[in-house]
């Protein structure tokens, strides 16, 4: 992503306009939020109706269509940016197949999670303990997120690329206009420290508040 890049007219895509796969992939390549939003509109128009029809025909509800489609898109964006997705056929087919697999996977998971069905597998974990663990994990993630949001935009972008999209320091330097790996690395270490300091401080404050 190039920070501060002027807005591109290609982003002004309405629901009425058709979008090619090439156009969508190009919009999703750099991680520019404006471009991403335009791509999301295209994908919703071109692909979502097919996914929705499939899920509704296979016992799903409206809410499921949205959740499954979002899970698929998040996975797809990550695969595309990390080079794990190679466009070999129409994007619509790829996303629809991903959504089908996701829907079957989700159904299988829900079946195994029905009360009474997983006691044999996890005899030591009660429902309450499991919920408590989930809540604790969510609280931890919220704290990390709060601190992440407090970082300057450039720090957030470097962290996004390094920690989420698995880009190397060299790649980030090229993408974001740094002189070399070393200079982006220096910034990353500084941002990482800021993030960690904030997390530690929040943990201490929370500890004081609960203690």
């Amino acid at each position, binding site marked *: 992503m190039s920070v501060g890049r002027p807005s591109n007219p290609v982003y002004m895509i309405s*629901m*009425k306009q058709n979008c090619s796969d090439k156009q969508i992939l190009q919009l999703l390549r750099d991680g520019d*939020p404006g471009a*991403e*939003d335009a791509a*999301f*509109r295209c*994908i*919703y*128009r071109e692909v*979502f109706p097919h996914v929705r029809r499939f899920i*509704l*025909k296979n*016992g799903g*509800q*409206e*809410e499921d269509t*949205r959740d499954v*489609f*979002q899970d698929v*898109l*998040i996975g797809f*964006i990550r695969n595309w940016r990390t080079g794990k997705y190679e466009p070999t056929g129409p994007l619509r087919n790829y996303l629809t197949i991903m959504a089908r697999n996701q829907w079957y996977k989700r159904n299988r998971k*829900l079946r195994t999670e029905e009360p009474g069905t997983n006691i044999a597998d996890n005899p030591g974990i009660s429902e309450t303990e499991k919920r408590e663990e989930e809540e604790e994990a969510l609280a*931890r*993630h919220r704290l*990390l*997120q709060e*601190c*992440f*949001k407090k970082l300057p935009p450039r720090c957030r972008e470097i*962290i*996004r690329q*390094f*920690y*989420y999209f*698995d880009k*190397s*320091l060299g790649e980030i330097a090229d993408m974001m206009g740094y002189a070399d*790996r*070393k200079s982006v*690395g*220096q910034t*990353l*270490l500084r941002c*990482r420290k800021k*993030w*960690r300091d904030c*997390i530690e401080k929040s943990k201490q404050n929370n500890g004081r508040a609960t203690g």
Partner: protein
Amino acid sequence: MEEQLDKLEKIHQYLRGELAGQRLADFEAELARNPELHQILEEEQELRSGARFSVEEDIRNRLDKAHREYLEEKAARRGLIRQLIPYGIAAAIGLLLIGFGAGYIMGPRTSPDILGNNDKKQESPGTLPPNEISRPPSEIGPSVPDQQADVIGGTRRSEVLAEKQIRVLRKSDNGKTWTPADRAIDLTIRQHDRRDAIYLFNGNKLIIYAPREAGLHINNLDILELPSGKGAGLYLSFSNRYYELRQSGDAGDSDGEQVLIEIDDPEVIRRLSPG
């Protein structure tokens, strides 16, 4: 500095499962004897999961927006089609009348009696063109409409927060108070994890999917009916805010799910306001 960056990149290669063979063995041996490296590894795991959570939640919020825009565009398109239906019907009737009129005018001139070939016409009464004969009856007959997805009757996995039957309120004759009408609505409030309330309304069943923090208390909630040109309009009243309720399951409406949007028409708000 260089060493620190190399270490960081190596940790990430390890976490992504990219280290193999001797490099993996060396790294694991170093990890076992170096508690500092072990601590950095744990920190990096935490930061990676934090980055994932933050980035994905941001994308999810923006996808929600695209989803809402898609539903709104779709609803707008359906509205336009509904507006055009009367014109379409009028055009079809017009064409029929023109065809009928033309047949009437042309009829006597092409009449078998006048042309003298009446016998030929009567030789094959009721025969279909060859291409029609070869088609199975199911293709010739009326098509069966697709079964609409039952979005109301099915069970959702979202948690039910409240259920109640609510009487619809109508303005009394003096126009100042609301009194219960004969009609009742089965209202269910379900929790979901999105920011906007979504509803499904079909017949006398209304399901509202509300974020938990919205705190839609069923006891403070009314369903109001106002007479309108197209029949009675139904509105949801909650904390002096009003929302129009549109029925799903109308012709051409297969979506059902709609975003609960507060109405901003001052005239309607005036009519809905107490007193």
